[in-house]
């Protein structure tokens, strides 16, 4: 998955006299690493999900074309499947190929 993950560790000060850390909470946040903020097809935020999904993240992933334009996977599939024989990128009109 091409996404940026960064972790922020919050150490809880329940340190025993010996100095060992016995409890910590890991807090992670993530965002898709796309150049745009919204999907050019549904116009929903990339950090949200497409209108057919309820939860953002792995269940509603982004996908990149060979031309480097990103879309919700579900959105670009609806477009590509409606175009015969060849679909073009909605943003730049190049022949649509999924990025390897």
């Amino acid at each position, binding site marked *: 998955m091409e996404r940026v993950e960064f972790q922020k560790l919050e150490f809880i000060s329940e340190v025993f006299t010996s100095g060992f850390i016995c409890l910590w909470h890991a807090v992670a946040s993530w965002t898709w690493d796309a150049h745009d903020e919204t999907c*050019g*097809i*549904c*116009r*929903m935020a990339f950090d949200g999900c*497409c*209108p*057919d999904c309820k939860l953002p993240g792995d269940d509603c992933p982004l996908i990149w074309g060979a031309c480097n334009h990103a879309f919700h996977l579900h*959105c670009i599939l*609806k*477009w590509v499947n*409606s175009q015969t024989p060849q679909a*073009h990128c*909605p*943003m730049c*009109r190049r022949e649509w190929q999924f990025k390897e």
Partner: protein
Amino acid sequence: MTGSSASSRKVLSKIATNRLQKELVEWQVNPPSGFLHKVTDNLQRWVIEVYGAQGTIYAGEKYQLQVDFPEHYPMEAPQVIFLHPAPLHPHIYSNGHICLDILYDSWSPAMTVSSICISILSMLSSSTVKERPEDNDRYVKNCRNGRSPKETRWWFHDDKV
């Protein structure tokens, strides 16, 4: 001019409704210059006033565009026609149908009502003559059964106007 296809339209899909609501908000915040959308509670049909740009042969004139959205917008292009009277233009038929590739073969789901409007105004503005397409009478006669322009097989041969 609404045609049988318009009256038997299916309701908008969830994706279409969502997108149109976003486009409507975006239009209200930042409308394309030279256009006035008379908002109604019908999300599926927009009627938009077009004002001829200053310095062009349509300056001071006002026309109306009717935009009908299909169930699967934006995977499918909306149907865009001029309401009567349509501007005199080499690519606009007297029944309001517009010969413009982005409305048919070259439609992309990244386009919006706003971007369509800008293309249409640009098409109007670049015209130097007020005349109908050469095949106007033949074409309009063929459309008398209420055929949608989306059912026409268009030939796009002139990108100068």
